[in-house]
């Protein structure tokens, strides 16, 4: 009986592995598709049946960073020979480059806004987390609940009054405006996550340091911070990704100067003929760093997505 049972469970195990592998392939098709479309020649992007084998090229990325117009007549051979490699690839598609597109600028906006807001949220968040972790605070749970609840508000709900306020003080379409909003978004997250990490550091370390003549701040700075370095790094990456991905506030609060990449890439859909290879290229550039970060974060993902409530 036991032998039969174990045979059955061995079969079941194999079966499960096969199903998991099939599911994983299905799961990765969309990601593969976006990655491959980004390197396709335009003519190969919308074929029936879909093109799987093609000669990869970087033209979609060149198009992403440039503004182009249709060539009225073919370029002279002489001019073509003299052109740089990226100009040639655009000529081949019957267009010529007239200017840089705003994409680079939008990417820089994304990096600057996500970077600064993460830094600020993490700084304030770590201090606050330490405060809640080590000292008695009246109504501690209520305050922590309040902090977390600010994170649960739908952006559209808060956006209306914030937009009106920002308009009054001139923060619409500014980097500072978005930085403040993203800082608020991430601050609650940083407090909760960092509190979890700091709670895990034995309080005895600090007590020993205090006995040795450290001030409270020195104990925090020299003992607690280095001990929670991993936690700080993980929290920073999570916050950065949140700000990097944010769409709704960016859509409503910015339109040109401080616009980040998420509202910009879809706006490229525009009217007329959609060049999906260019959009795929933008998507690829935007999503690739996140995929890398996910791998770096893999041990802390569970913690991150539950605001530090579940640790493992």
């Amino acid at each position, binding site marked *: 009986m036991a032998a039969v049972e174990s045979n059955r469970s061995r079969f079941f195990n194999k079966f499960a592995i096969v199903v998991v592998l099939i599911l994983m392939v299905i799961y990765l098709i969309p990601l593969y598709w976006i990655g491959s479309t980004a390197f396709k020649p335009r003519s190969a992007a919308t074929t029936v049946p*879909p093109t799987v084998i093609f000669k990869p090229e970087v033209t979609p990325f060149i198009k992403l960073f440039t503004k182009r117009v249709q060539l009225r007549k073919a370029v002279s051979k002489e001019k073509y020979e003299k052109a740089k490699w990226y100009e040639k690839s655009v000529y081949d598609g019957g267009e010529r480059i007239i200017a840089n597109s705003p994409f680079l600028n939008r990417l820089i906006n994304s990096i600057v806004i996500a970077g600064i807001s993460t830094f600020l949220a993490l700084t304030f968040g770590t201090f606050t987390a330490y405060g809640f972790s080590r000292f008695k605070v009246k109504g501690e749970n209520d305050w922590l609940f309040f902090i977390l609840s600010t994170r649960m508000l739908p952006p559209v709900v808060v956006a209306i009054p914030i*937009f009106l306020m920002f308009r009054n003080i001139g923060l619409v379409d500014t980097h500072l405006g978005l930085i403040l909003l993203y800082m608020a978004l991430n601050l609650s997250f940083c407090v909760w996550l960092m509190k979890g990490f700091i709670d895990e550091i034995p309080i005895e370390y600090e007590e020993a340091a205090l006995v040795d003549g450290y001030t409270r701040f020195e104990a925090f700075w020299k003992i607690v911070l280095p001990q929670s370095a991993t936690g700080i790094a993980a929290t920073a990456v999570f916050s950065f990704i949140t700000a990097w991905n944010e769409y709704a506030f960016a859509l409503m609060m910015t339109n040109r100067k401080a616009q980040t990449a998420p509202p910009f890439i879809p706006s490229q859909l525009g009217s007329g003929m959609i060049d999906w290879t260019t959009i795929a290229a933008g998507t690829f550039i935007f999503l690739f760093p996140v995929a890398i970060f*996910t791998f770096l974060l893999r041990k802390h993902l569970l913690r991150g997505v539950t605001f530090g409530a579940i640790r493992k």
Partner: protein
Amino acid sequence: MTATASAARRGLSDLAIRNVFIIPTLVFLILINIFPLFYSLILSFADYSAVSGKPPDWIGIRNYRELLHDPHVWESFYITLKYVIISVAGQLVVGFGVALLLNRDIPGKGTITTLLLVPMMMSMAIVGLFWKLLYSPSWGIINYLLGLKNFVWISNPDVALLAIAITDIWMWSPFVMLLSLAGLSAIPQHLYEAAAIDRASRWFTFRRITLPLVTPLLLIAVIFRTMEAFKTFDLAFIMTGGGPGTATELIAIKLYNMAFPQWQTGKSCALAYILLIMIIGISNIYIKYLNKAKER
């Protein structure tokens, strides 16, 4: 005690440190979250458009009354409810199912799990954008793989909502999977051994041991996803913009349209408040369960 006391003499006192560490954060959050909400509460009692240049006209609770009698608002709530049920149920089935399959010794399990988690970390707006490409009727990869010739997804009022929900399921099932796996791996192995000795059937073991022990974490996953699905804006806005017609006009999109393109500021503040109360209700439940999970 003496240590703390002498430390206090040298540096800032603990009390001062605590206040310096905590108060700025609280003040900032109140300023940027609570203060605007008071502002919009006031505006919700006015007939006001932020672009008209006319001062608010105070009309009491008429905005609320009109909204609650507006069939379009109810329709939006109904669409949202349908969306929440489809997408959360889908995520629960796929996520928990895959977790059950993954909960064994599989070579490369860590890599597989991490790969599955990648979509969850991505921008919903950008994911929505590239799923539009996958859903394309004539040359999209989905129709090709499923053998559906020229089937229209996004511009078809009957399936547009389902199309958005499928994308959401693709993105967020791994979240349910992650929490389920955490729950499953925490079940003590000796319970299963005891069940095996008693010759309990697979189904019995699942129902009496596995399910009750993962339920707390599953519940957290479900409540969190319910809340997020209820708030869905990015994905639907990019994929369909609420269309075709109003087929996918989720409540968040309805609110956005009212507030920005139509500039019915007063009325949209009132709708925002109705939503806010609902969200606070759900998030209260959620945080309660989070705290429970923390205590375990």
